[in-house]
């Protein structure tokens, strides 16, 4: 799915990540943890080709990301759903239209019944016609998750998705991600919240990756 071999990345000559070797296994739930500023977000951005590695080899769904055209990158992103801590929406469109946006830009018809089901799954049926600025933090994150999965992507990346949420809301969001994983989706969640990782691991088998000193390590029992 995503394979990195000795990947490095730096900003302005300063290397932030180095010798990253990683294979995201299909159908697995992954956590990516590490202290703030360690490069979790950068690693996720590499995964959806928002950044390109400065060294090493990286493939996404079998294709060298460095060789992808701009259309190729767009096509790659249709196979990857991304949820950010501060996910942006098109504020002039209602929630339902924002959720359907990936279908719209992909030129696909919107199945209204499926859209209603999706809104119901994330608990936003009542907010279908609301504009995004009127949503609470938890509602925004659930809307972001719904938008991320509407194209039925193979991989879901979440960058600190619970960063602005209280514990109950965080767990509610994690439940949705667990459901997606159980339905066969590969999930990678970047978080520095170890309690969240422990609670999730109690419900689903998860692989925990840790970034420290610019390199990637497999974490385990020490969590």
């Amino acid at each position, binding site marked *: 799915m995503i394979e990195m071999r000795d990947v490095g990345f730096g900003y302005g000559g300063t290397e932030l990540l180095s010798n990253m070797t990683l294979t995201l296994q299909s159908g697995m739930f992954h956590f990516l943890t590490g202290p703030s500023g360690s490069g979790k977000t950068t690693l996720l951005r590499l995964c*959806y*080709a*928002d*950044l390109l590695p400065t060294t090493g080899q990286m493939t996404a769904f079998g294709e060298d990301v460095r060789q992808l*055209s*701009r*259309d190729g*990158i*767009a*096509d*790659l*992103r*249709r196979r990857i759903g*991304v949820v950010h801590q501060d996910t*942006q*929406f*098109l*504020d*002039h*469109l209602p929630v339902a*239209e924002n959720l*359907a*946006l*990936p279908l*719209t*830009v*992909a*030129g696909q018809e*919107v199945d209204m019944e499926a859209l209603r089901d999706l809104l119901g799954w994330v608990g936003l049926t009542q907010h279908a016609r609301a504009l995004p600025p009127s949503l609470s933090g938890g509602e925004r994150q659930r809307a972001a998750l719904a*938008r991320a999965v509407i*194209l039925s992507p193979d991989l879901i990346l979440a960058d600190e998705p619970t960063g602005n949420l209280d514990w109950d809301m965080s767990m509610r969001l994690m439940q949705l991600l667990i459901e997606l994983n159980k339905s066969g989706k590969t999930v990678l969640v970047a978080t520095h919240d170890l309690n969240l990782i422990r609670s999730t691991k109690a419900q689903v088998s998860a692989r925990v990756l840790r970034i420290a000193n610019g390199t990637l390590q497999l974490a385990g029992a020490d969590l």
Partner: protein
Amino acid sequence: MGTDFRALNLRALWQGLIRDSGPGDRIVPPTGVTAQLTLFSAGAMAFLAVFALALALATGRLAERWSSELAGSVTVRVSAPMGEQDAAARATMQVLSTTPGAGQPRLLPPDEVAGLLAPWFGPDMPVDALPVPALIELPVAGDDFDAQGLRLRLEAEAPGAVLDDHTQWRRPLVTAANRLRVLGIVSLLLIAAASASMITLAAKAALAANGQVIRVLRLIGARDITIATAFVRRFTKRAAIGAMAGTLCGMAGIAMLPGMDAAGGFLTGLGFQGWGWLLPLLIPVVAAAVGFFATRWAALKMLGAVR
């Protein structure tokens, strides 16, 4: 990159003009005042373009008319002492009747001569009391008419007869009319260039203002063509609608000008004739094309900077 935009063809222009705004068009937020300013600017430019076009067409007609009249006839002025003028005129008529390439000469009667002088002396001036030369109009009937040869013949056979082939005063007018036509065409090109600049600036402003929207769209898998087309459609539509309104106003203004037969002057001849009335209707089409290509160029530049 180039591949993305090759697909942005004229079909998008046509669809942008005829299709209802679908969800694809709604991805760009409404821009309020900017939209109205673009409409207004396109309308104002089209209004000016109508007059520039009318100027170019009218001066073209004028130059053509003057040119054909220049080549169509000459005038012979016969000056002689009182009492000898009739004989001099007859001798001149005799020469003119046998001139190769010339039609039948016509001696202008006194009342017609008086009519020519009326603008200067008024209608009540006793022209008979003035030493007015006799005037003979000679139509040019063939290519073998030789004005210089005729001039020499008149000098020899009818002293006092002076040939005026109108060259001296009409040629500068024809030149002026032709230059005015060129100015009209240059004005049209400048208006098109100014419209393109204005739409490019508006499109760039819209793209810059929607940087976050563009980034969101790229992140959810939107191709450049999808994003660019939304902007291109919007600006093409605005340019076309604004230009249509401006063109109709301009055409109404031209239609309200006094008829050219009323005075026959240059300004009253500023307008369209017959099929010429269809020409201004091309202005909205050109404006739409200008909007399409200007926005396409601006979008191409802007989207290239967003990964």
